[in-house]
């Protein structure tokens, strides 16, 4: 992801606070997007996140960077939302790249399911 494109990124009107999960979406060049999540990604938040991914794909983005650095907890429903988004991105010829959560509690679900080896995970946005 070219961070230089961030300044001209299109902020999506649907972005904002979703329950206790804060999110912001930027579409960079029509085919790539970044979604920054902050808070708790659980079964309560997963449906809204799925809708946000759908909005991103409807906008034409196929490569999506998901910044999980500020996510404190992820359950299997949150994981499923990410798995589904990865599948949809790859079906369109793109991919989903995850920025690794800083909190060990949020990273745990990836390790337990070995999805840390399935997802493309990087340490910071500059590496995406």
């Amino acid at each position, binding site marked *: 992801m070219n961070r230089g494109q961030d300044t001209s990124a299109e902020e999506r009107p649907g972005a904002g606070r979703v329950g206790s999960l804060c999110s912001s979406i930027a579409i960079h060049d029509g085919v790539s997007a970044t979604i920054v999540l902050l808070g*708790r990604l659980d079964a309560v938040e997963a449906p809204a996140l799925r809708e946000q991914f759908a909005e991103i794909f409807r906008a034409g983005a196929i490569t999506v960077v998901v910044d999980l650095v500020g996510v404190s907890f992820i359950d299997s429903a949150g994981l499923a939302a990410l*798995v589904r988004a990865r599948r949809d991105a790859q079906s369109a010829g793109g991919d989903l790249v995850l920025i690794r959560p800083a909190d060990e509690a949020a990273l745990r*679900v990836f390790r337990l399911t*070995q999805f840390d*080896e399935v997802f493309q995970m990087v340490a910071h946005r500059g590496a995406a």
Partner: protein
Amino acid sequence: MNGGPARLTMSADALSVRKLGPWLSESLAPTGGEAKELQGKMELAVHEVCMNIVDHAYSGQPAEDRSDLHVECWVHPEAVLVRVSDGGSPFQAPAHRPTPGVPQIRGYGLPIVEKLADDVRYERGNGINIWSLRFRRTRTDRSNDRE
């Protein structure tokens, strides 16, 4: 703990299950320096058990017809025990379990519980489902384990 378990009663819905985190934090205070590590494992495990109940034991039932979830926690010198009980439909083991590292959308909840807890038991009696989870206090973190 005054000899008895810490108790939490909550509605059988996803939003109510969020009460687990703060409640566990308080319940695990007697474990001192172990509390943070225990909380990290136990919150995810007990959360997944409760969400399995919300999604399956009460599947299709309107919220007003659902009985409450009851969670109890005992802190012992060697282990922390958690019991989750509900009055929903009997648990039915899923026909397929996910293969580790192979992407699929659903089915990860209980395998996660089994990896985090040292012992997981399910029993049903008198119309009540009871899940019992045991977490050793001195165990090594298996979060990095692979199947």
